[in-house]
């Protein structure tokens, strides 16, 4: 079994995710990009797990999925609230915490 292909796929997905997080203004798309990065990590975990014949990778992946679901729930709730307050979900406009 070739590990490299999986790692390559994961790296590509991760980079797309990073790009999305850094470049997009829409908060929903930023959240989707974060999801992409997490799933890239999941692919890595499962791939290494299968490569080393260990169940630990899959277990970790399951945990990551669970946490990701919770994270998206919280994130989307915040986005909804921001939208209600400001009628916009553009991230560069939400800069009230500036020092």
């Amino acid at each position, binding site marked *: 079994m070739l590990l490299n292909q999986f790692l390559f796929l994961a790296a590509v997905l991760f980079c797309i995710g990073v790009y999305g997080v850094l470049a997009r203004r829409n908060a929903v798309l930023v959240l989707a990009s974060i999801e992409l990065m997490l799933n890239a990590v999941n692919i890595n975990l499962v791939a290494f797990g299968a490569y080393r014949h260990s169940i630990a990778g899959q277990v970790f992946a399951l945990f990551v999925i669970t946490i990701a679901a919770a994270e998206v729930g919280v994130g989307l709730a915040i986005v909804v609230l921001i939208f209600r307050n400001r009628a916009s979900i553009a*991230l560069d406009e939400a*800069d009230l915490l500036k020092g």
Partner: protein
Amino acid sequence: MFFLRNAWLVPAVPGACFFLILFFGKRMPGKGADIGIAGVGLSFLLSLGAAVKWISMSTPRHAVERHVTWFKMGGITVHAGTHIDGLAVMMLFVVTIVSLMVHVYSVGYMHGDRRFTFYYAALSLFTASMLTLVTADNTLLLLIGWELVGVCSFMLIGHWWEEEVNSAAAVKAFITTRVGDVGLMLGIITLFYAAGQNFDIAHLNRLALTGGISHHLLLVGALLLLLGVVGKSAQFPLHVWLPDAMAGPTPVSALIHAATMVVAGVYLVARVYGVFLSGLSIGPLGNGINALALIGGITVLIGAALAFVQDDVKRVLAYSTISQLGYMVMALGVGAWTAGIFHLFTHAFFKALLFLGSGSLIHAVHSNNMSDMGGLRKRMPTTFWTFIVASLALAGIFPLAGFWSKDEILLGASRGDYPLFLWVGVIGAFMTAAYMTRACYLIFWGEYRGEGHPHEAPPSMAWPLRILAVGSIGAGWLSAFGFHGFPNWVSFDVEGVTREVIHEYAFSVPLAAISLAVALIGIGVAAGYYFRNLGPHGLTRRNGPARAGYRFLEEKYYLDKIYIDGVIRSIQYPIARGMYWFDQHVIDGFVNGVAFVSGKVAGFVYNVIDQKVVDGAVNGAGFTAEESGGILRYIQTGRVQQYAAVLFGAAGLFALILVLTTA
């Protein structure tokens, strides 16, 4: 064995009641009296159980000991526990029954008092302290009980402290006994080291009797302990506090005189008797005159003599107590251990009865003075007959309690070959009978001289009198008519010591006849003087030497004057003046010097160290924080994506470093 093994419950119950009354007493229906009576009643039942168990134990009886580790310090382990033998069981019984009677009696006597609840709390603590002292198995615990008893007596004597006389009496009692307590504390420390750094009393007795401690050390220890006994048990010359202690409520006087406080000293001697026996060479160890017997003997006579000239009924009884305590100490001093303790036992009943009876009189007449009484025989029948029973018991009339115990003391003095103290005992018996006859005459016969209409005491006061009257009649029969109950149950046994140190004496008919005859003559002489108006009346007014003698007694041998003018004034004036000079010049000079130097040092510290160094550092820290914050705020844009870019950039940088260094 439950009652003997768990004897710690007996002091613990009134101890707990003290706190209960203090915190909840005011809200109870009986204002705290109910808790106090229930607690002491429970203690009494436990003591009764212990007594029954002790008596039913098969001979030879062994003391029941139980202890827990109290504290460890410098390699010494100190235990706290109970040592229950015949002496302790007897004391538990006496203390709890007298305390119970006093508790019940006080409901009537103290009715409507402004500090009624506090009074009951103090009574409970007083009882608990005395019981702790009695059950203690080591001298340290005993000392704690001893001091607590002192504190409680202080609180109760000064119960009506609004009047200056009362608070002064409380202070006098406390300070006078404290003089003796210094000796006690030094004695305990001496014996602690003498016994190989051990506070245990049984161990101490064993060592003392088997020659484990040198005679000189024991002599010093015994004399120091004796000083404590003299203070606490009101022996000559520290007896002066006891008559003044009459300032307290009368039931408290009964408790102090019969069961707690003053008998603590006698109990201490009996408890560590090995030390006294070897240290002072008592009885079989040598028949010389020793300090213990001498002090007891002097106290018997001076106390009895003073009782003749008092007008205050409680003071008559107080001097009588001093005299009777003298008997107990004298008995212990001549080696008649059982006799002394037996006298303590019987005395508790009739002296408590006399005090409660006098309380009933005072309650009715509203005066302490016998010159305000008279003719009360018809008006207060219960008080009258119980008082007469107690007086006859005190005088030593067959077959009442005092007869048997006093007779045993005389027997002890005669068999121990102490003729001097035999005479003291006989003369004391004569005087006792005479002064009690005088008191009874002045109270109950003749015309009523007071104001108002005296009435009989309420039932809560009358019943304790009746119960104690039964005790005053019957207590002596525990060692009477050829029955050796008391000496068998209560004896001075030290395990491992088989030597015959304590003599047990059989009843002697001739001596008993003599003592009875002497007491009857005493009564007869006094009765002739007062009832039949015989003898030299008015002698003290006509005759110079007689007047001087009367005055000498009235002034209590000028002992109070000597203490106040001789001891206290001599300290107050010259020494106080010297101390004042020393204070003004030496101490103040020193203090001022210290203050001046401190001022200079403080000035330097303020100007140089505080202003420059400390403030500099504080200001510098603030300035640095402000400046660095000013710079850092530029990267705080509030844009999440910019933060994320920095985050990923940094992560990438670290990843690069990782790859380069591991490659």
